[in-house]
């Protein structure tokens, strides 16, 4: 079995974002780029599955759609333990376009399990994984909190409102992962870092596919009213304020 983990390159989650060019582009000055947290966890789970010989998982590949500037993030994934990496050389500006590029990669290389995160921390679209599946006519399972392989078949736990479902699905399929998929992200060891330096990142040129959306501009969140403080000696006043002003109590 071959697993593909799709990784998105995002600003570190503590970044306070700013915009340039008439608020149409992210100001990348001083930004630390990281693997999207979900993708780090899905890579971790893929490697755990590979470590367990009974699963029959032979390789874990990472794929990223992005420009050469995101190579350090791809190297990080290799250092953590991915066997190889693919980069599609395109600026990721639209989920539809990104998914179409990944689908092309899958058509050429053939994977049994494709893992995507539930959302990227920059675009927050929750879209790429399901779109890849639809482009390929494959089943997809969303909100996956556990993925096991038992006797060659994938057994998935899906989170639903107030509970869980255990689902079986034939490969190939797309799993869109969320909290629970792995406990802690695996960290690159020295050996991995050394090995990652020499691993080649396979480069694909993008296929011509139009983006369906365009970001006209970014805006900062609406400013919130300043905090009204209530004296700690008189908490009751807080409840009275909430009752009078928010009418929610």
């Amino acid at each position, binding site marked *: 079995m071959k697993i593909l983990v799709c990784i998105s390159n995002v600003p570190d989650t503590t970044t*306070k974002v700013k915009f340039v060019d008439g608020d149409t582009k992210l100001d990348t000055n001083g930004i630390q780029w990281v693997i999207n947290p979900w993708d780090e966890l899905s890579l971790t789970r893929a490697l755990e599955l590979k470590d367990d010989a009974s699963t029959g998982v032979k390789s874990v590949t990472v794929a990223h759609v992005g420009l050469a500037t995101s190579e350090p993030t791809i190297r990080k994934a290799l250092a953590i333990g991915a066997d190889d990496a693919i980069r599609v050389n395109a600026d990721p500006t639209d989920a539809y376009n990104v998914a179409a590029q990944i689908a092309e990669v899958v058509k050429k290389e053939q994977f049994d399990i494709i893992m995507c995160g539930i959302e990227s921390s920059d675009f927050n679209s929750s879209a790429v994984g399901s779109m890849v599946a639809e482009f390929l006519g494959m089943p*997809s399972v969303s909100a996956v909190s556990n993925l096991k392989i038992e006797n060659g078949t994938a057994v998935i736990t899906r989170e639903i409102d107030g509970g869980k*479902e255990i689902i079986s699905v034939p490969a190939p399929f797309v799993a*869109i992962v969320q909290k629970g998929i792995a406990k802690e992200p695996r960290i690159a060891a020295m050996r991995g870092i050394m090995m990652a330096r020499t691993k080649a990142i396979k480069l694909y040129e993008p296929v011509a596919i139009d983006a369906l959306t365009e970001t006209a501009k970014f805006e*900062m969140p609406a400013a919130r009213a300043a905090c009204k403080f209530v004296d700690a000696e008189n908490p009751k006043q807080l409840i009275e304020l909430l009752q009078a002003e928010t009418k929610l109590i």
Partner: protein
Amino acid sequence: MSVLVYTENWDGKFKKSSFELVSYASKVAEMMGTSAVAVSIGNVDEAELKLLGNYGAQKVISVNQDNLKTLDSQAYTSAIASVAEKIGAKVIVVANNNSGKSIAPRLSVRLKAALGAGVSKLPISTSPFTVYKRAFSGGAYADVVLKTDVKVITLAQNSFDVIETANNAVIEKMDISVDAPKTQVKEVQKQSGKLLLTDAEIVVSGGRGMKSADNWAPIVELADLLGGATACSRPVSDEGWRPHDEHTGQTGKIIAPNLYFAVGISGATQHIAGVSSSKYIVAINNDKSAPIFEVAQYGIVGDAQKVLPQLVAAVKEIKGK
């Protein structure tokens, strides 16, 4: 031409969020000079379907067949895409919840329709069709132009109020054949009767400042008294003080209640990413410089152990309990 809205049901019933969705779709339809049509999948009785009319749906299409018994994203996509094509839908509105997220992107590809995901307002304009959506995990918002003739929108939860109208929806049963699902649900583990965190209008949430699992009683009591749900920060669920399904934030649940109490929570960006769409945030923290006060509208600088019991007492008094 019309606006199609997919209304999910829970054991044959709709929720307030379904009505918000229909209200939203009706307003979008109005902006486009057309009407809203709802599609329901599964076994929902006529009286329940009729309810959708009260929020502006002119017509409710009901699809019920064996291959749609469990949520298989391919089967559901086929069914909704067929309905959309039959009625010539220009915009398809879906909830931005787990089911919506598994269907909407597939619809986008199937119909080659641009997707606006996690939209939290009515479109800014219909020509070009521009939506307002969350980006950078709440650190910013984006005005996104949907460039295709047909569009798919997922509406962020709790971002639109219900609007009641006097209107009698026509109910139509539609037969749509879809292929047998490839995914098979083997087992369902469900906790019923509990108010879901994502549905709650009031949420009382505790962080590491609560010090120990043993200190949670007043948080639970306050939530119960207010008809709300409980939540927590990530370290709290990591420690096992509270169940994982309460973990709120970027890597947990993203919620948007009307009132969010953050007790002993510092307000790290990753936590705020999950709660920044709350209408009001109330912070209780003994550190005046905690970042949570920058996003809160109401605050008490004080010890949670002392403040919480007094809040509980005050609510009891107001509610006459």
